[in-house]
């Protein structure tokens, strides 16, 4: 009896689905070709990585034939830094469909290796980029135009609380009454409670009939977005939700190198407080910013999730050839 015959070697997606996937990817490329957005490829392996407190990165050892020392290389969590260096070098509008890698992420809607669409538009702000992403998702889903809501309005509508002014003590109390006392009674970080309430109490209720953009996130969750000039409590960051799934994250991109350096340092302070090793900041990315990033907006879209929704599937394993468990 040969044991190998029991191994499930078959793809997790069926062949018909893979054909439909190829058509969607071709439609996306056509969408950008018609708009004169240049397709680029940037490295999957790089010498530096992200500082985000909640991001776990894959790394590997490179045996450099030109050097006696092994060198650590990191798999990209998104092509953001490299694409911004292209923008600094004068590329103009660019897009990329690339694999991104995130450690410690697996589930119905997560695979540690996934396909990401990322694009950047010089002279766009986050509102203009939301408009363009809206056109793309209407094309893919054949759905109605999306609607928009600020982060603050979403909390007011669904939880009757203001995420920008509510105190930590009040957030802890609300979290407890909503059934999350285990996390909320001692949680000292406002953003953790806000992220919990958003993902559990708001996300399942928005973008059900048509996609929903949430924009102007709290400045403390700015990531690489600009702070809004009129209201510095919020950052010019948006996310797109459809049928309870987060599909995209975009920014009116932070271009100020001093502020970028401060955010890296703040991330590393948070990492140290959480007993995580600090990350060496990406000097090449900072040098690019120093020379000047054009005013631009950029967005990353989870292509596997997009295809999953377009084809009425429930798990991303059903739309990728092999998920991590049988890769």
């Amino acid at each position, binding site marked *: 009896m040969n044991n190998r015959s029991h191994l499930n070697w078959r793809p997790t997606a069926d062949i018909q689905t893979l054909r439909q996937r190829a058509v969607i990817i071709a439609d996306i490329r056509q969408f950008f070709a018609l708009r004169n957005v240049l397709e680029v490829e940037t490295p999957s392996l790089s010498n530096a990585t992200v500082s985000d407190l*909640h991001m776990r990165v894959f790394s590997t050892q490179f045996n450099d034939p030109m050097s006696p020392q092994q060198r650590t290389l990191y798999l990209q969590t998104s092509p953001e830094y490299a694409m911004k260096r292209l923008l600094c070098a004068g590329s103009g509008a660019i897009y990329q469909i690339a694999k991104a890698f995130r450690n410690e992420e697996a589930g119905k809607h*997560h695979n540690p290796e996934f396909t990401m669409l990322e694009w950047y538009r010089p002279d766009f702000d986050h509102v203009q980029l939301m408009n363009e992403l809206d056109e793309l998702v209407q094309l893919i889903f054949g759905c109605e135009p999306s609607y928009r809501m600020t982060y603050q309005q979403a909390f007011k509508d669904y939880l009757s609380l203001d995420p920008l002014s509510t105190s930590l003590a009040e957030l802890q109390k609300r979290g407890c009454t909503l059934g999350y006392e*285990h996390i909320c009674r001692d949680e000292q970080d406002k953003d953790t409670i806000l*992220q919990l309430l*958003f993902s559990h109490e708001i996300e399942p209720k928005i973008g059900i009939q048509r996609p929903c953009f949430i924009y102007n996130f709290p400045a403390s*969750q700015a990531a690489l977005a600009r702070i809004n000039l009129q209201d510095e409590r919020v950052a010019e960051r948006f996310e797109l939700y459809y049928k309870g799934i987060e599909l995209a994250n975009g920014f009116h991109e932070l271009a100020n190198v001093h502020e970028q350096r401060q955010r890296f340092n703040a991330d590393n302070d948070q990492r140290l407080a959480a007993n995580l090793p600090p990350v060496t900041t990406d000097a090449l990315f900072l040098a690019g910013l120093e020379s000047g990033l054009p005013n631009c907006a950029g967005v990353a879209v989870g292509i596997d999730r997009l295809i999953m929704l377009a084809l009425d599937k429930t798990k991303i394993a059903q739309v990728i050839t092999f998920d991590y468990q049988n890769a």
Partner: protein
Amino acid sequence: MATISTNEFKAGVKIMLDGEPCNILENEYVKPGKGQAFNRVKLKKLISGKSLEKTFKSGESFEAADVMDVELSYLYTDGEFWHFMNNESFEQIAADEKAVGDNIKWLVENDSCTITLWNGTPIVVSPPNFVELEITETDPGLKGDTAGTGGKPATLTTGAVVRVPLFVQTGEVVKVDTRSGEYASRAQK
């Protein structure tokens, strides 16, 4: 003390939560693209039998619950405890009324039951899926009913009451599904 992290959670893993052993039923990973990851977990409290849904921060650790299932034969009750025996080692163990709970009415001498032990103490007694019990009382059925439609209540030796077809009479032994509490058939002679 053994600890279990959320990334080891899967169906069947037993953890301590609020001082009570719990069985994990389902574990879903929830993570925003930017921000804290969570695990949304369905679990069952083993003593109260209550199912609940809880959200934890990913990476949080819990004390492992020392819980195991053993197959033991039911011997007898002294009114306060229900006594079971391991058929191989002949070791005996006593379960209290709380552990036996509603399953009291399905305990048949010499039947093999699943006993859930927490730190060596029985907390749940599960009877076999089917038990055979004698009817002590039921109304005489109408003549000619063989299809078993409608039925009538019948009291069994343990006090359990089940609906049986009209043709089944007092003194007969019936097979009952303990999960639904429904009559399955007359016992094979």
